[in-house]
């Protein structure tokens, strides 16, 4: 695509770029001889013609070569000067101002010509230095001059030619996390090495205080201390000083201010003392920075590790699937497998994608996803999760989720989002610093005033600075990350996934827990226990079951699935159903054999004007008294009968409720079922607050009502109909066995379907927060205790060092109790 060098210049018939006649590519087409600048343009031209879109060339309004006119102008699409980058894009941008870099994921790339076009567009965009696009990955790495272009401008430009670009988050996070990690490691490592040297020297000095030391030796040791301490402050401590300046500018006394103040005053005081012959505190200055950096490094490492766990998880998903076409089997990459495709999985293979078993039976090991190590039986109609291990049977699976929809991908996404959510713990430390820093400053000024007023000038400044030095709690930086790390680690080991640090904070305040009945409190395995039909014929029951099951085939609701499963067990052949529609909280409707079938609660049928015979009502009442859920079935205008389903509480439900109650939490149950059923379950599990017959919108309303009465509410559920309530609660808890939407709207996901998980989650969040507050207390305590000594002018380095070491060790040991 170089400019023509020979005088014979033609223009490309696709992109209109001028091209030398000899370099041009010619193609004999039915519509005549066409000239192209490159093969990509030719193939695009062919494609457009073959698709019958020839009038594209007639209708397009390009008259000049290459890129459409509005894109070539010098002015960026955004009018006026460069608008600042939107905040949402900032995390994706690397590099300094003169040369910024970002990765974009571009939607709409079909062929190599697109890549060629995009690269040209990008490189002609003002300010863009280079653009590389991977054809296979659809990922672009763009570098641009920050003074001439913005990322949002580049994205807008790509959009104007029909490609949707978004910052590529996964790689971006990974990359920035890696760089941040390395930066922290370098700073921490440097601080640690010099602090070690400093410690050795300081021990000599401490010994000198007790045994006496030759002044010349002391002088030399102090010089070396200064030498070792300076890089710690100048290099490792720089982020703190920068953060402190930023904080002060914003009028906030954050933790960085505290750390900088402590380290800087210890350093200056020591230099002053060294010249004057007093005791020095270089080790204090260095250790403050080293220990806070250690806390930050641990936090960063934990995030990094979580993201790598995700990548390993995704790497375990097979890259190929055996797709079945009639008698043929073909290995196809998983990205090309579509929804509804049938795939075959042989014994011992890993299941590539989520699906429903259509034939065969096996046992699968889903420990990777659920943590449940016992193999689970999977027969026709059961769902299997991609990434789990197939046992000894060969199964045919109909794919229901591909790509980002798979359970594995969603878990990965969940974990990734959890990492990016800001930890509330930093805020907690900042909140405390906001009171502590002014307090310490006040004390310091008071000390100065007191000494100056009643004694003489020299030691007054010394005493004031000593207060600042000793007050800085260096364990503060580790108090929260270490505890959260230990807490989340313990939670993950129990199969509980908190979607973010802030969830941990909200969870520990919870004093009411609302449990959804179906699937959460009960086994989640509802079974049909009674089929009763109005018609007297002997096969009427089986007809009723067949019709109800046929209508419910598309259902994600537990009751519907139970009916379908039961029908299959009974050997019923299901009929095709159309126009399936789930009516949350009421039931479902579908067309079977051209007749409208309703399966659901009594009001659903009554609203449709279907008359329910008295005999049927009496039967229904009897079943409900036994604690069964009753589903009414009708065909067009006739009530056919009822199906009674039994839904026993989970074996651990009563124990879990007892634990929650003992923790001082009000336990309530909400269900769409009728009162009798709900009451029986409530009695069996020991829940006293039962709300029955609540519609899905009503569930959210009930949760809000509780919240308005000043309670902090957690809602646990797993169905589509629970999603609004999960979102409405302070903390939404979803069971991993539940529907996707529930997991999506929840803050906490419990990977095993046991109710004790809810109790464990509450327990852990409370313990973590108790440990954090204890940590914060101990972090401040020793230093606070030493302040009076400093104010009295008795501070010596031993006390400063001891206060620091003891508070740090206390914090770490205290956090480890969580494991």
């Amino acid at each position: 695509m170089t400019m023509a060098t020979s005088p014979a210049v033609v223009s490309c018939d696709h992109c209109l770029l001028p091209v030398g006649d000899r370099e041009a590519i010619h193609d004999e087409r039915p519509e005549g001889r066409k000239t192209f600048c490159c093969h990509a343009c030719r193939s695009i031209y062919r494609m457009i013609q073959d698709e019958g879109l020839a009038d594209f060339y007639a209708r397009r309004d390009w008259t000049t070569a290459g890129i459409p006119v509005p894109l070539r102008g010098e002015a960026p699409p955004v009018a006026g000067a460069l608008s600042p980058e939107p905040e949402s894009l900032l995390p994706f941008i690397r590099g300094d101002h003169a040369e910024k870099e970002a990765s974009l994921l571009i939607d709409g790339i079909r062929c190599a010509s697109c890549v060629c076009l995009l690269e040209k567009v990008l490189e002609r965009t003002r300010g863009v230095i280079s653009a590389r696009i991977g054809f296979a990955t659809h990922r672009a790495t763009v570098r641009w001059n920050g003074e001439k272009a913005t990322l949002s401008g580049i994205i807008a430009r790509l959009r104007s030619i029909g490609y949707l670009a978004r910052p590529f988050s996964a790689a971006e996070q990974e990359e920035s996390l890696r760089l941040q990690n390395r930066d922290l490691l370098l700073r921490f490592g440097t601080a640690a090495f010099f602090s070690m040297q400093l410690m050795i020297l300081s021990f000599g000095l401490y010994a000198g205080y007790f045994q006496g030391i030759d002044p010349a030796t002391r002088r030399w040791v102090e010089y070396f201390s200064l030498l070792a301490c300076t890089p710690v402050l100048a290099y490792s401590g720089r982020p703190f000083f920068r953060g402190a300046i930023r904080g002060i500018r914003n009028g906030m006394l954050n933790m960085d201010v505290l750390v900088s103040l402590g380290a800087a005053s210890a350093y200056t005081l020591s230099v002053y003392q060294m010249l004057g012959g007093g005791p020095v505190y270089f080790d204090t200055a260095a250790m403050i920075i080293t220990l806070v950096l250690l806390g930050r490094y641990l936090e960063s490492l934990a995030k990094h590790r979580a993201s790598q766990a995700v990548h390993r998880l995704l790497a375990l998903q097979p890259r190929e699937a055996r797709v079945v076409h009639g008698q043929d089997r073909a290995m196809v990459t998983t990205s090309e497998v579509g929804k509804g495709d049938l795939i075959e999985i042989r014994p011992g293979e890993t299941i590539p994608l989520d699906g429903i078993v259509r034939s065969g039976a096996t046992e699968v090991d889903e420990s990777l996803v659920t943590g449940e190590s016992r193999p689970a039986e999977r027969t026709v109609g059961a769902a299997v999760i991609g990434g789990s291990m197939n046992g000894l049977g060969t199964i045919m699976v109909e794919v229901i989720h591909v790509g980002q929809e798979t359970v594995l991908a969603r878990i990965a996404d969940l974990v990734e989002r959890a990492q990016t959510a800001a930890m509330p713990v930093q805020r907690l430390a900042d909140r405390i610093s906001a009171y502590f820093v002014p307090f310490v400053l006040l004390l310091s000024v008071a000390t100065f005033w007191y000494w100056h007023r009643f004694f003489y000038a020299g030691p007054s400044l010394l005493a004031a600075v000593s207060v600042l030095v000793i007050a800085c709690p260096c364990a503060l930086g580790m108090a929260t990350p270490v505890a959260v790390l230990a807490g989340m680690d313990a939670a993950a080991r129990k199969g509980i996934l908190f979607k973010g640090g802030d969830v941990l904070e909200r969870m520990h305040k919870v004093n009411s827990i609302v449990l959804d009945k179906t699937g959460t409190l009960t086994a989640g395995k509802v079974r049909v226990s009674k089929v009763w039909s109005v018609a007297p014929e002997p096969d009427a029951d089986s007809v009723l079951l067949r019709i109800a099951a046929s209508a419910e085939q598309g259902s994600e609701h537990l009751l519907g699935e139970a009916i379908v499963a039961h029908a299959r067990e009974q050997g019923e052949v299901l009929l095709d159903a159309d126009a399936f529609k789930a009516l949350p909280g009421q039931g479902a409707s579908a067309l079977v054999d051209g007749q409208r079938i309703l399966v659901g609660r009594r009001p659903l049928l009554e609203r449709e004007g279907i008359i329910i015979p008295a005999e049927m009502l009496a039967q229904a009442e009897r079943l409900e008294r036994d604690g069964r859920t009753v589903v009414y079935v009708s065909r067009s205008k006739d009530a056919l009968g009822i199906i009674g389903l039994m839904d026993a509480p989970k074996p651990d439900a009563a124990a879990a409720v007892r634990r929650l109650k003992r923790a001082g939490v009000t336990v309530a149950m909400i269900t769409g079922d009728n009162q009798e059923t709900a009451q029986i379950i409530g009695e069996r599990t020991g829940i006293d607050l039962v709300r029955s017959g609540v519609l899905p919108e009503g569930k959210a309303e009930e949760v809000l009502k509780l919240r308005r009465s000043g309670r902090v509410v957690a809602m646990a559920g797993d169905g589509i109909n629970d999603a609004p309530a999960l979102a409405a609660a302070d903390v939404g808890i979803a069971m991993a066995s539940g529907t996707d939407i529930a997991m999506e709207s929840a803050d906490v996901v419990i990977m095993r379907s046991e109710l004790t998980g809810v109790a464990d989650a509450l327990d852990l969040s409370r313990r973590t927060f108790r440990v954090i507050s204890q940590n914060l207390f101990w972090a401040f305590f020793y230093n606070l205790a030493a302040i009076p000594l400093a104010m009295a002018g008795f501070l010596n380095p031993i006390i400063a060092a001891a206060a620091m070491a003891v508070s740090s060790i206390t914090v770490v040991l205290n956090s480890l109790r969580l494991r």
Partner: protein
Amino acid sequence: MLWTIIALIVLMFFLGLAAWLVFLWAAKTGQFDDIERPKHRMMDDDDPPPKS
């Protein structure tokens, strides 16, 4: 006596400095970037490890 101590301190200082330089080299060449992955690598299938 004094000079012996100073000599020892300087020796210690340079030993520490050497260790620190080794650490700097290791951190900068990415030796610590991923301390989780290598131990799992032997479990992988035949695919070559990712280059980056």
